[in-house]
């Protein structure tokens, strides 16, 4: 194990090699954790999911018979009006909440607890302010018992990957919002999660940074290809990134429509191209308009 990691020290930075060393390192690490990792599919299955919140007197039904399937390594973007249960859906997928009825399954088994195989990235980064960039990325590896030598290798790789070399020892508050979110993303990816859950990860960034981060996310993601559930309020972001887009109806949330972006985005998917080129394509604009129409009708229904 140690040797595998050490060997790839030199390969480092380059993201593309098929036999990604980090992958091997962490696969072994997962075996050490005792999970049956080797033959696992990473698909998500939502089966008649209902989620209710019991407040004082009133009960809020956030999600209602939500049915959906996310294939392994698929990039699914969730859009819908505010309060329709998107975050709730993500929290359930992470194992932080449990559905009132129905099942959420990862690779065929019901999700019970949060864990490093289900990474989550929030809008406000939620880095540990008392830890340096390096220790933030290290946290998950360390508490799961990976030996220091391997950890250092991996962290170095990921710090280079997110372009923050030189900032290893900075505290989060010394970084810009975009840099902080990069660290949060690295902290998730370094764990080699089976699914990556992102709740409006770029909403707090300005337009330029947002665009940069979208491209960067694609770059990092395509090297590892975890299954992604990505929430956004930006229709453009959804159309640019997604394999498929789920539009959720206003509360109680159900699947209103599922749109297949891959059918339009071409064989290599347009997210591999620069955003400003893609956004000018008529088929992109057409899809964007369609989705915006769907979301708008839900918002207007409300009033």
């Amino acid at each position, binding site marked *: 194990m140690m040797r595998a990691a050490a060997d790839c020290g030199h390969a480092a930075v380059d993201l593309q090699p098929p036999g990604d060393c980090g992958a091997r390192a962490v696969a072994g690490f997962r075996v050490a954790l005792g999970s049956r990792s080797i033959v696992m599919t990473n698909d998500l299955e939502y089966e008649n999911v209902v989620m209710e919140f019991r407040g004082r007197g009133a009960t809020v039904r956030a999600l209602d018979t939500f049915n959906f399937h996310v294939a392994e390594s698929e990039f699914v973007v969730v859009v819908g009006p505010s309060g329709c249960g998107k975050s709730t859906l993500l929290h359930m997928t992470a194992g932080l909440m449990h559905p009132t009825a129905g099942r959420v399954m990862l690779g065929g088994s019901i999700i019970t607890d949060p864990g490093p195989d289900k990474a989550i990235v929030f809008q406000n980064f*939620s880095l540990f*302010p008392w830890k340096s960039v390096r220790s933030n990325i290290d946290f998950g590896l360390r*508490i799961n018992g990976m030996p220091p030598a391997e950890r250092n290798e991996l962290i170095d790789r990921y710090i280079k990957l997110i372009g923050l070399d030189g900032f290893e020892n900075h505290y989060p508050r010394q970084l810009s919002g975009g840099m902080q979110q990069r660290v949060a993303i690295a902290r998730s990816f370094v764990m080699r999660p089976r699914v990556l859950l992102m709740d409006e990860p770029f909403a707090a960034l300005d337009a330029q940074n947002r665009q940069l981060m979208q491209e960067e996310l694609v770059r990092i993601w395509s090297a590892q290809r975890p299954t992604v559930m990505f929430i956004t309020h930006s229709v453009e972001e959804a159309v640019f990134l997604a394999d498929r887009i789920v539009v959720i109806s206003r509360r109680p949330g159900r699947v209103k429509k599922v749109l297949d972006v891959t059918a339009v985005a071409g064989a290599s998917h347009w997210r591999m191209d620069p955003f400003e080129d893609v956004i000018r394509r008529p088929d992109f604009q057409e899809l964007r308009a369609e989705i915006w129409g769907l979301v708008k009708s839900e918002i207007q229904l409300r009033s």
Partner: protein
Amino acid sequence: MGRQQLQRTFYGLVSIGGIIALWVYLTGSGRVTPIILPPPADVLEGAIDIYRGYLSVPWYEHFRASLVVMLTGYFSAIAVGVPIGVAIAWWRPLEVVLSPLLAVLRPIPPPAWIPLAILWFGIGLAGKAFIVFVAAVVPCIMNSYLAIKETPQELLVSARTLGASQRTLLFEVALPSGLPAIMTGLRIALGTSWATIVAAELVVSLAGFGFLIMNGYRNLESQIVMVGMIAVAVIGFLMNWAFLLIERRLVPWRETDD
């Protein structure tokens, strides 16, 4: 900024200088009796008196009496209060059992404990350390409690999704996240401890700065009172300053150094 700094220094000098000038003027030629306001020279004499052993108490005894006793009580309060505050914030059953007790004890001002402490523990180190303990333990508990309770939910959630156990959540997320607030509590407790030991010495003591203030008063030697007050203020200031230095060391991520 430079201009404003200059202005600030100027006005600061004017006001401090003004106060000193007023002091010199008022006490100058018997406009105010020395008891009401001792002249600067008398205050200096008072300080020398104390140094030579006012009421035959050697000067260092005052430091020993006030500081040693206070620090004993203060550190015991930290040792007891912080773990209790953290525990009740983290462990719900303990909160249910202890928070009503705290709610009852908290509003009793520290000086109100003085007579009881003397009754229970005598007028020596034990009694005074107890008073300081009672005074300091409340902010220690309260601030640790709130510090842990106010750990940002998303940090806990992030750590859990990274695989953190309860133990890791407490020691590696909640505690560091709450450390600044805990430190604030300890600093408040330090000020409270110092004020309380002085109060306790005003009631009963054989040495200490409260002892000086009280005996200066009894003997109508206001210059002794004033030296006592100045010493109390200077020591209070120095302790606070030292604490801030330590705090900056312990909580470096709070700083912005760019």
